[in-house]
């Protein structure tokens, strides 16, 4: 039957398609929505075409060819496919033809047909947890009712679930609203108080519809009123432990009677105390809170709802109503404690007396009555001090007074708290004249965000109670534990990253022991700062001594476990880690004359912090190295100098021969003895002989060694005329073997040392004063020695040195040959003094020809060139 029906449908579709479609393929069905998860069957039919058969058809879903096993061939021209819808996205299902004949390829658009599949989910479950509320508006109930519910399962964008909220009352007058969300409002105009309402939600989409449960309740069942207003609290002096609450009804009783809930708390507390419901379920407008603390600030709130059981919703809490209960005399003792200030000195120690209000202060403590009784053991004197301290509060701690407690003196402190109504019992705390033992093995650790303090009982078992004191960031607090306690958590508020000094004292009948203290952190963090490193002294050439100031615990945010010192030069960074209690380190193995950047990081268990960078440069030399070099060089130089001196000492003759050759004095020459034709000796004074030729004994390169006569004649040397006069005949000589310009040829010849530092003119012919002013026409007479005695013989015979000197001078101006021209003779005369010098080197360097020439020149020959006219 099913296949017959399918065939009939196929026939009908073929007829329809043939009439209205141009495609040769036809697909069906075309449902509006397909349910996700269901099996969908589609059929494709070939219309009036024989070149393709059902075997040529295939199905393509979202560009994916469906497997052949899902196909079902109905006949030769129809094929169907069945598959499970998985995706909830809309997609196309195409029936296509794979026959490659040209006609089909050219008309490919006609050989395809598709089904657009829009997905949807069946509404799986009814909207659940339907809840509705009608709020109070002014003095009546709003006509708008608001409902919420849980969704009905998944949905798609193409087929969303539409929720319809129905509200109907007994008169069959109802209203509804539709939404795609899970919350809606229905307006009823006037709220039908005291009428029964029926409320339900209908969830519907294209694939189905379900209804939620129907809420059938009286209309006031859904009402949520405003909280009670005008809350007032009355405090009565005669009832210090109670407060009377009054309020105004939020809505008239004609709507419904109300029941209430009341809660209260003290200011600063985090928890509320609820008044039992049975006490407030009546239709009341006032309530008396009882068993309260006197002199305490209380905050109260009230809420209400329909008093009928199960009806209505609790309103919001009312505004705070605050009131102090009347005060009563303090009950109990103030918590008295003394904390040590600073370190004990020679005279004792200073203590700070502080206290906390009695647990039941029953009001505001306005002052404390303090009595201090000091008893000195040495002189058995007792000093009594009574004061009334105005309070100076810091939190719940009252700092009373600082008192010195000398050694060997017992101090007893008595304290009474006073409020406006009365005073408390007297608290006592004593400091004995001798320190008593405290607890042992005190340990403090952080546990579950609190500090756990553990200790061991002292050997003496007379313990009344323990006092655990902690000081951190300038704040001090304490708590007292009973005598059997050996471990406790610090109850006060502690801050992380703050160093606390925790001390435990033993109280024996009110007498305090000495403290046992440790430092602890509730939570350690990375340091917020690191010390700045600096150098101790100057850096060495391979090391530096670094120092830093340790971070105080209050700023370290944890126990400094290590300091890591980094030092860097160029790209090379090295690090050294030292313990946290270190404050200096000596860097070694540094390179000399190198700049280092160094910094230090402080580390706790939680992290580290890098300090500022400090730069220093190592020295080039090690200490004493320069001194060593200087001493070495000095010693070397001294040795060299000594060697030179020794050398000079041992070779002084040679040096004298070279530098100060013995020059015969022409004045002492015997020329006058062997020149009988020219009786100069009688006519010329002695000085004229000397003035004609003078021996210049100068040091090497020292122009200042000139004779005074020559110095006097310097101006004359600058005169060319005079200069030429000087050079005539005799000529000059030089210590150097190289030819020198004669003084007479130089314009600067007056300052010989300036022109040729190495030139030494040890011989000069200076015109005597007798020559000055003479005309050139007057022939100047020179006596020429014709002696053949060797020059050195003059030295061997000092008596005849003057004569021989004259001969030597005559030899210096010997002619080189008869064939010389007058100019060449003059030149030769100028060069003669060089040959005259008896330097051995010169002698050695002379060529044999020169020796021969010199030998030939040694004979006395008439002077051909003569003297230049003056």
């Amino acid at each position, binding site marked *: 039957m099913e296949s017959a029906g399918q065939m009939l449908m196929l026939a009908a579709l073929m007829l329809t398609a043939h009439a209205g479609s141009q495609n040769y393929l036809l697909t069906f069905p075309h449902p509006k929505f397909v349910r996700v998860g269901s099996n969908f069957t589609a059929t494709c039919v070939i219309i009036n075409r024989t070149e393709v058969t059902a075997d040529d058809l295939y199905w393509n879903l979202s560009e994916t060819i469906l497997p052949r096993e899902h196909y079902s061939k109905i006949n030769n021209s129809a094929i169907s496919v069945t598959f499970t819808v998985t995706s909830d996205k809309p997609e196309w299902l195409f029936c296509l033809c794979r026959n490659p004949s040209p006609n089909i390829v050219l008309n490919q658009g006609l050989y395809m047909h598709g089904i657009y599949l829009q997905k949807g989910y069946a509404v799986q479950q009814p909207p659940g947890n339907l809840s509705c509320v009608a709020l109070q508006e002014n003095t*009546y109930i709003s006509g708008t009712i608001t409902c919420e519910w849980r969704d009905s399962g998944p949905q798609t964008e193409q087929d969303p679930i539409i929720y319809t909220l129905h509200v109907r*009352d*007994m*008169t069959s007058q109802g209203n509804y609203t539709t939404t795609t969300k899970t919350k809606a409002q229905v307006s009823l*105009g*006037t709220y*039908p*108080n*005291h*009428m*029964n309402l029926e409320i339900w939600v209908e969830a519907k989409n294209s694939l189905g519809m379900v209804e939620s449960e129907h809420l059938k309740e*009286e209309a006031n069942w859904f009402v949520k009123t405003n909280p009670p207003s005008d809350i007032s609290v009355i405090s009565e002096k005669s009832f210090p432990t109670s407060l009377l609450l009054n309020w105004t009804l939020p809505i*008239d009783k*004609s*709507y*419904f009677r109300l029941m209430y809930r009341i809660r209260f708390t003290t200011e600063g507390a985090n928890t509320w105390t609820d008044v039992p419901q049975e006490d407030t379920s009546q239709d009341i407008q006032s309530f008396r809170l009882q068993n309260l603390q006197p002199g305490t600030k209380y905050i109260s709130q009230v809420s209400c709802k329909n008093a009928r059981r199960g009806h209505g919703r609790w309103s919001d809490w009312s505004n705070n109503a605050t009131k102090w209960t009347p005060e009563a005399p303090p009950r109990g003792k103030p918590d008295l404690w003394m904390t040590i200030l600073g370190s004990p000195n020679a005279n004792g120690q200073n203590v700070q007396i502080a206290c906390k209000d009695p647990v039941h202060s029953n009001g505001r403590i306005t002052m404390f009555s303090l009595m201090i009784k000091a008893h000195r053991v040495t002189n058995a004197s007792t000093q009594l001090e009574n004061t009334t301290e105005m309070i100076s509060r810091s939190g719940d701690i009252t700092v009373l007074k600082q008192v010195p407690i000398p050694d060997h003196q017992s101090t007893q402190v008595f304290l009474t708290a006073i409020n406006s109504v009365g005073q408390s019992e007297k608290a006592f705390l004593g400091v004995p004249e001798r320190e008593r033992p405290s607890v042992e093995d005190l340990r403090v650790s952080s546990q579950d965000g609190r500090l756990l303090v553990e200790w061991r009982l002292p050997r003496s078992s007379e313990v009344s109670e323990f006092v655990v004191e902690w000081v951190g960031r300038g704040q001090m607090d304490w708590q007292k534990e009973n005598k059997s306690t050996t471990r406790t958590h610090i109850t006060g508020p502690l801050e992380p990253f703050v160093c606390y000094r925790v001390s435990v004292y033993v109280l024996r009948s009110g007498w305090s022991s000495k403290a046992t203290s440790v430092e602890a952190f509730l939570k350690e963090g990375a340091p917020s700062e690191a010390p700045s490193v600096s150098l101790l002294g100057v850096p060495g050439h391979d090391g530096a001594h670094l120092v830093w100031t340790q971070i105080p615990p209050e700023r370290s945010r944890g126990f400094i476990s290590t300091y890591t010192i980094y030092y860097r030069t160029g790209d090379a960074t090295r690090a050294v880690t030292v313990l946290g209690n270190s404050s200096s380190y000596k860097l070694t193995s540094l390179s000399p004359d190198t700049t280092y950047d160094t910094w230090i990081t402080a580390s706790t268990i939680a992290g580290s912090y890098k300090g500022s960078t400090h730069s220093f440069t190592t020295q080039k030399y090690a200490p004493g190295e320069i001194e060593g070099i200087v001493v070495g060089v000095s010693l070397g130089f001294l040795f060299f100098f000594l060697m030179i001196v020794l050398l000079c000492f041992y070779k002084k003759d040679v040096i004298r021969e070279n530098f100060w050759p013995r020059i015969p004095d022409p004045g002492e020459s015997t020329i006058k003895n062997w020149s009988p034709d020219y009786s100069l000796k009688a006519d010329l004074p002695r000085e004229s002989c000397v003035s004609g030729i003078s021996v210049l004994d100068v040091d090497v390169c020292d122009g200042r060694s000139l004779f005074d006569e020559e110095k006097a004649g310097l101006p004359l040397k600058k005169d060319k005329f005079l200069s030429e006069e000087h050079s005539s005949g005799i000529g000059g000589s030089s210590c150097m073997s190289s030819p020198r310009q004669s003084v007479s040829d130089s314009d600067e010849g007056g300052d010989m040392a300036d022109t040729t530092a190495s030139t030494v003119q040890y011989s000069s012919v200076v015109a005597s004063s007798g020559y000055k002013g003479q005309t050139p026409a007057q022939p100047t007479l020179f006596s020429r020695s014709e002696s053949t005695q060797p020059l050195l013989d003059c030295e061997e015979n000092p008596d005849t040195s003057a004569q021989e000197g004259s001969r030597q001078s005559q030899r210096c101006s010997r002619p080189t040959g008869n064939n010389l021209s007058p100019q060449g003779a003059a030149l030769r005369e100028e060069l003669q003094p060089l040959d005259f010098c008896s330097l051995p080197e010169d002698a050695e360097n002379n060529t044999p020809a020169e020796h021969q020439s010199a030998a030939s020149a040694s004979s006395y020959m008439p002077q051909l060139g003569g003297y230049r006219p003056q």
Partner: protein
Amino acid sequence: MNGHVKSMHFGQFMEPVTTLLSLLLLMAVDSTRIVAASRNQQCGNSLQQTLKLTRLIQKESVDLIKTYKASQGEMSELLCKVSVPIVPDPKISGMDTSEKIVSIYTHLQAFLPHLKRVYEQQTDLQLPTSPVLDGLTRVSAHSRNLAALINIFYQSLFPNVPIQEPAGGPTALPPPQNVFQQKVYGCVVLKTYKELLANVSKELRTLKNNKCKRI
């Protein structure tokens, strides 16, 4: 011996029968009580709701009259002292419960057109945000609900007798009036309606005390 045995057998047989009869009797009595309690509870719940709604409308009508007087300007106190014959009589008539309930229902139905007319007149006289209009709307709506509750209550008491709609056709309303007449008319309607509600409340309390307990 046999007789003794027979007696023993009879005794053994009678014991469970007695127990069974006792149980059946107990169930019968209990079911009767349950039915009675159920009917009584139904009567009480329905009547209680009706009574509460009546009190609510009564309170709202009192507030509305105050608001109405405050919104009418000068001489507002005198407005309500004038007699307007066309306004229905607030007295509940009838001898028995059925007649009284029908009378209540009839009176409520009769006042609804008057309240509607007053609302229309005050719409012209007041601002749209006037509390008078809000009050009139609420009182009218609650009055319709009260009439429906009365009807339901009546049906619960007399299920086989349908309640009679007011005879004589639609309620007669006053002809066009001037402003003063409208003010007077409105105040008289509200005042008379308040009296009606007081009477209804009184009758319902009586019914609650008598009818529901007796049932």
